[in-house]
């Protein structure tokens, strides 16, 4: 099975993700224009890449979430297919309702580009099986709206369901709100839906997939996905 990377007007990490999937991880990958209404045959994974779809105007991800391709992505997810939203892609996922919550402006009201440490909270998802539970990994972030927000009772429910997959952390393994570079509630950096097949995260694994770029921890994500895809192909 292959990966499909959706390109929205203003996506700017689409080529980066394709590089990480195809050139680095040898996962067959196809780009899909947002005006399409169906996904390529044999799509196992849909990636909504980072960037500034529609310039981040109005609300980040809002206009991309109303693209013609979105119903097909929704349908793919409902059949258990994998959907991965990175940064702006995560914002698109919350705007479509495929994931709960909203991403608000960073508490500093500034764009932040920097390396971050994350704690892997779950390894029983198709995206994180290659990590060790509690492992601390380093991915960069680069966003202006990354403060994960949910009203209190829904946040509790999210936590109770164990939907938090990545949390901002320190090198010694503690994780939580105080490590959020952007003010994200409970230090939330990435979450899955209840089914575990839709993952959204603010940090960029594709920017941490080669030694030469400073970290190859992102390979954990691609390797997990690859294993899942290969398992499905058999």
């Amino acid at each position: 099975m292959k990966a499909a990377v959706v390109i929205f007007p203003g996506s700017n990490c689409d080529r980066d993700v394709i590089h990480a999937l195809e050139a680095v991880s040898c996962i067959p990958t196809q780009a899909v224009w947002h005006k399409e209404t169906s996904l390529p045959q044999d799509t196992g994974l849909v990636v909504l890449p980072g960037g500034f779809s529609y310039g981040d105007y109005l609300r980040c991800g809002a206009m991309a979430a109303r693209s013609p391709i979105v119903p097909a992505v929704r349908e793919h997810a409902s059949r258990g297919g994998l959907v991965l939203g990175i940064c702006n892609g995560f914002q698109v996922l919350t705007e479509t309702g495929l994931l709960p919550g909203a991403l608000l402006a960073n508490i500093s009201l500034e764009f932040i580009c920097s390396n971050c440490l994350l704690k892997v909270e779950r390894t029983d998802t198709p995206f994180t099986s290659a990590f060790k539970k509690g492992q601390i990994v380093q991915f960069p972030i680069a966003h202006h709206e990354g403060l994960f927000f949910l009203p209190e009772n829904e946040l509790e429910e999210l936590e109770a369901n164990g939907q938090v997959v990545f949390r901002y952390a320190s090198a010694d393994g503690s994780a939580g709100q105080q490590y959020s570079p952007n003010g994200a509630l409970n230090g939330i950096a990435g979450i899955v839906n209840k089914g575990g097949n839709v993952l959204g995260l603010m940090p960029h694994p594709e920017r941490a997939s080669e030694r030469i770029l400073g970290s190859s921890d992102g390979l954990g994500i691609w390797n997990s996905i690859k294993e899942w895809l290969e398992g499905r192909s058999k």
Partner: protein
Amino acid sequence: MKFRAHVLVSLKEGVLDTQGKAVRVSLKNMGYGSVEEVRIGKSIMISLEATSRPKAEKQVEAMCDDLLVNPLIETRSVTLEAI
């Protein structure tokens, strides 16, 4: 007929208004000590064509639901004038 709709989008009570807070702090630092609260929202002006006022209203409400407002974090108020 032509209409102009004015959609005022504000953050819901309980959603942190980081920008409003920052502006309040700035104003205080600039000597405006009398300021108690600042809330920042969006104002969206839409000029549109419709055959009647109710139709225009309905369209604007639909646009709000479909795109302009995120009900998890925002509320809106719409006013409409014929032009």
